[in-house]
């Protein structure tokens, strides 16, 4: 192509301009066609009641304005109840997974980074391996591991503990905790908490915590993601100049002091990165829900991502399903911006 351009007598700059666009053309076309255009089309569909029949752009498709969005927040009904339930579930999931995976990843990185230990590369590989395997395949394994007669319950049995029926147990962990402390009776919750609370869900429902079934997905995800984040921490740890830590020790800092005042501050950018990436990915949990629970039991593993899929492809309410995914998009964008903002604040 450059040859042809030269024949036509184009200047070097014009030729490079042309070559540049030819080189990026496939990426521009594919990303435009399958990333940008879909988002625009979906914005339109989220304003309609399209049921999947024919083209969503025909004039016969009912236009409903912002109704698909308002139904999620203001109208009392099943749509809002399911959506709020999914937000609650995902919220508890994020609040547990993000800190756990970050702490576990950092802890593993610190130990693996210890210069005195041998077999580092084996341990690094062992911790990282779950991260590279198929989410579907690994969910199948966890279905087996947490089955009623599965490995986890066998293991608990060795300690004389009667394991729960993990995947059919809809009881919330917070409810169980309050029950265990004797503060509430899980079978007869205080009537005041059963009154409808914010967005149509009762306070009792909001304060459930993740269900026992959800906790299996929580464990699975912490287990599969910690390895990747460990590698990020490990790379950051190896970038810390040894002289810095040595100097701190010479100045009389103890082991804890070195960690608190030298290592941790140096890790701050990575820490924020891991938190941001963790937050973004945990709000998108889908594969594991699809394979392990499909939102059951009692909708306690329903997440916005799965709900949007279910609403569109199972109930054929594409408008409503798309609206859910845009709200999810907004949640992720806002959280990312908030974290960026906090990060900028800290750097100054």
């Amino acid at each position: 192509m450059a040859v042809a351009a030269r024949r036509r007598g184009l200047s070097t700059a014009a030729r490079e301009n042309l070559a540049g666009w030819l080189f990026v053309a496939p990426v521009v076309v594919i990303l435009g066609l399958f990333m940008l255009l879909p988002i625009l089309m979906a914005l339109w569909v989220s304003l309609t009641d399209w049921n999947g029949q024919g083209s969503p752009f025909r004039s016969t498709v009912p236009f409903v304005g912002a109704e698909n969005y308002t139904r999620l927040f203001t109208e009392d009904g099943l749509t809002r109840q399911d959506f709020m339930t999914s937000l609650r579930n995902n919220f508890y999931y994020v609040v547990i997974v993000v800190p756990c995976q970050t702490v576990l990843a950092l802890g593993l990185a610190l130990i693996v980074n210890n210069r005195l230990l041998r077999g580092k590369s084996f341990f690094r590989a062992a911790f990282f391996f779950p991260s590279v395997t198929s989410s579907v395949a690994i969910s199948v394994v966890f279905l087996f591991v947490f089955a009623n007669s599965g490995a986890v319950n066998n293991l608990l049995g060795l300690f004389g503990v009667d394991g729960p029926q993990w995947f059919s147990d809809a009881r919330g962990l917070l409810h169980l905790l309050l029950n265990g402390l004797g503060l509430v009776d899980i079978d007869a919750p205080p009537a005041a908490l059963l009154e409808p609370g914010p967005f149509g869900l009762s306070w009792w429902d909001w304060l459930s915590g993740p269900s026992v079934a959800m906790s299996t997905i929580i464990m699975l995800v912490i287990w599969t993601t910690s390895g990747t984040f460990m590698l990020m921490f490990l790379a950051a740890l190896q970038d810390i100049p040894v002289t810095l830590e040595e100097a701190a020790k010479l100045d009389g800092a103890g082991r804890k002091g070195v960690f608190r005042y030298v290592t941790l501050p140096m890790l701050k950018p990575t820490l924020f990165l891991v938190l941001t990436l963790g937050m973004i990915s945990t709000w998108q949990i889908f594969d594991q829900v699809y394979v392990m629970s499909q939102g059951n039991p009692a909708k306690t593993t329903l997440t916005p991502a799965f709900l949007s899929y279910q609403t569109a492809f199972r109930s054929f309410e594409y408008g409503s399903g798309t609206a859910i995914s845009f709200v999810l998009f907004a949640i992720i964008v806002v959280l990312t911006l908030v974290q960026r903002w906090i990060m900028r604040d800290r750097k100054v």
Partner: protein
Amino acid sequence: MARDTTGGRTLASSFLGYCVLIFFALVFLYPFVIQIGNSLKTEPDAVSSALSPIPDPLSTAGYERVFLGTDLPLWLGNSVFVTIVVTLARLLLNSMAGYALARLRFRGRAGLFAAVLAILAVPGVVLFIPKFLVLNQLGIYNSYTALILPVIVDAGGVFIMKQFFESIPVSVEEAARIDGAGVFRTFWSVVLPMARPALITLTIISFQATWNEFPHSLVAVQDPALFTLPRGLADLVSGSLGVGTQYPLKLGAAVLATIPVAVIFVVFQRYFVRGANEGSDKG
């Protein structure tokens, strides 16, 4: 990290370190051991002694049923086909775009790169329904084209290649240009051969991502003849075969879905590590 003055403390802390490492190595690897062990068990054995990794008696019935009683061979074929095509296409197209963004001066380059970064930030889960809409509108829903075309480039790969090309010296290319080679010729015979390490990283990342890809196949196809392995496996677990337990069969199918990535992981581990850290640079 802790080189203490007293030898006793060092010894104790190494011992403690090993204990923690071994405990977590067990936590991270034992599920795979259980998976393989139980895929080779008989049905009652898998139910009654799930924790034990040793099949007693050894049985390949699960695998026989996977190959003879399900469409898994077909899904395996689809996965191999899709993964190879997507990976080859990504290698070429991502590196072309990465090269242009790093080296060629063309109008709109900065804006385009900003767009790539923006696309990188779009959460994939938000695109499920939108992607279906486009595939449906273009009339390619439920075809190999739908499985392959939307994913033959990825913003992350473009980013990795751009970073790489910026890190190598420009002098070699300039020499080639002075010798009269055109832009494409320079790219193909001078630049690409130098990019081998980055291309291997890209191959690994792309192979792993495409092999494991699940949601895309969920919104791109519905005909079981077009299922990839993760899609088929998900169907196997939640579909009609999901009735009853049939653990050896399901675990066997999951083993087969894991093996290719596991082999590549063992062979090319350092590239995986590099890939994970490239990912962290994006932020």
